[in-house]
């Protein structure tokens, strides 16, 4: 059996292997060293949750703490990427994009196009997302839809430790700016991860469970939730196919159409808010491109149109659950067991 490590360790390992392989890879952000120059430097933090722990000592001069100045250091990632480095900048929580979004969407994302193809911006912005740890409105959002909306950016949202490592290595080697979404609840989840370096291509969805009755397309942490729902539904004779998008930009439209063609029913599970989000986008694409394959209206399971609440009882209602996914699947089958029958 392959080695089992956490999602968080998989990310650390991807960074470690890429920094060892390519001296132009640098890592910076708030607390990524986590004690640079301090009395306890030897036990430097390595990020607020320890994701980058150990790298500071292994790569002197290439793992840098920053002031709490997201605009400056995210913009510095853009400038560094234009001038010979492959920076990996950590925007601690995606919610903080509000203080530096100009440098992402007006600078990093657009330089290549505005400069007629002369610029390359091979940077990665790693960021934590998602609800589930009672972190309230400014530390719990999903927001990958906003980045997916921006031409010039790529967006990866891994769902497993295996994908986290392979997608991050791809992101670092990619010549375009990538926003890499790390779900904070998944950090402690364990999974099989090869020790050697490997890549997972962008824009290729992963069918994590095959089935004939209903397609469930999910993103990030919701992939596991969809699999859990699928397991419960199987007991009732409903056979779900679960598709993990892996990246929202580029989006693997073909895999979405293929699974809809196969099952005729679609549920999209997206932890983000519903308006102008991935679920709505996918529903629209399917309506436009494979309407004739649909046997039932597309169902969207998303967070409500609210900020993430603090109270645990409310937050648990905010995040899509396996139960809600199950209900949505049953809506597409009209309550019939064995939908294709």
């Amino acid at each position, binding site marked *: 059996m392959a080695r089992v490590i956490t999602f968080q360790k998989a990310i650390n390992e991807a960074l470690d292997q890429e920094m060892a392989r390519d001296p132009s890879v640098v890592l910076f952000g708030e607390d990524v060293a986590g004690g640079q120059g301090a009395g306890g430097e030897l036990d430097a933090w390595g990020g607020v949750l320890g994701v980058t722990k150990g790298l500071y000592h292994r790569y002197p001069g290439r793992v840098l703490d920053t002031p709490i100045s997201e605009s400056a250091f995210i913009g*510095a990632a*853009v400038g560094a990427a234009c*001038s010979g*480095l492959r920076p990996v900048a950590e925007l601690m929580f995606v919610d903080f994009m509000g203080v530096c979004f100009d440098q992402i969407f007006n*600078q990093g994302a657009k330089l290549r196009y505005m400069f*007629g193809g002369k610029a390359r911006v091979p940077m990665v912005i790693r960021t934590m997302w998602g609800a589930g740890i009672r972190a309230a409105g400014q530390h719990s959002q999903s927001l990958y839809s906003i980045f997916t909306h921006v031409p010039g950016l790529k967006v990866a949202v891994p769902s497993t430790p295996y994908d986290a490592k392979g997608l991050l290595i791809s992101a670092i080697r990619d010549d375009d700016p990538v926003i890499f979404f790390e779900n904070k609840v998944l950090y402690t989840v364990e999974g099989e991860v090869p020790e050697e370096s490997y890549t997972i291509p962008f824009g290729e969805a992963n069918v994590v469970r095959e089935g004939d009755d209903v397609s469930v397309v999910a993103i990030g942490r919701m992939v596991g939730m969809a699999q859990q729902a699928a397991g419960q539904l199987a007991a009732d004779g409903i056979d779900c196919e679960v598709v993990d998008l892996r990246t929202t930009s580029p989006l693997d439209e073909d895999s979405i159409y293929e699974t809809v063609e196969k099952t005729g029913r679609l549920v999209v599970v997206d932890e983000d808010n519903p308006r102008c989000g991935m679920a709505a986008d996918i529903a629209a694409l399917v309506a436009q491109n494979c309407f004739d394959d649909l046997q039932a209206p597309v169902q969207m399971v998303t967070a409500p149109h609210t900020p993430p609440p603090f109270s645990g009882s409310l937050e648990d209602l905010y995040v899509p659950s396996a139960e809600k996914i199950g209900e949505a699947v049953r809506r597409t089958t009209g309550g019939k067991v064995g939908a294709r029958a």
Partner: protein
Amino acid sequence: MHKEFTTGEIPGFVHLYAGEEAIATGVCAHLRPDDYIASTHRGHGHAIAKGCDVYGMMAEIYGKRDGLCRGKGGSMHIADMDKGMLGANGIVGGGPPMNCGVGLSAMVRGTDQVGVSFTGDGGSNQGTFLESLNLASVWHLPCIFVVENNGYAESTSDRFHASGVDIAKRADGFGMPGVVVDGHDFFAVYEAAGAAIDRARGGGGPSLLECKVNRYYGHFEGDQQTYRAPGEVDELRRTRDCLDAFAGRVTAAGEVTAEDLRRVDDEVVALIDDAVARAKAAPEPDPADLLTDVYVRY
């Protein structure tokens, strides 16, 4: 450009550098092709001083296929990475963080390249500018932050938008040298910029250079500048013109003759006229260009 814009043939927004030429030339005279500059919306002068092709710039300003950015950037985004020109920038204060990035790149790669960002007095009030001063100082980066203080953030006078005595004094708070120079005086800019750039190149860290200057034209072309005092610009042109000051000084010193300068003027006029004529005649971008160069690979 001012005259051409009135013909209606130049699309979009154009912001002219006239009156501020001593700054771009005085700074960029010290830069190598592999050094970087991050410019502003008022970037034509910076681009020329950093070595961008004038015809390529003009074709870009007219939105043509031959443009430096293939007609996809325009005046506000003229760039040439091969020349170390990281782009004019439509976002006020957008450039200083990128300046930190090229400085970091030079430091990590162990080169002696430097980065220079130009920012207006308006941009100096953006958080990006102040954050970048701090970051450059904390990381000890080979960066120079040039502030072109022309007295107006769009139409708002610096008396109403900038607190403190000089913008250069803001450097004190970030532990870097901050110098005020007369931005109409090429030699003053040249000397101060040279000191800052030498310092950065030698590992001495970042500096701030505030050049006090004036602009002749409006914030954008079409701005009638009704907010300026009657005769203000005429008086500046008569008494504070940086080209006149340069010519007076070099001819008085006997270094260059008036005839030499006339010849240079004639060459520049011919260069610009030719660039304008060719740009107007140049082909439009190909329709397929709409969809290219969003990504390296997608």
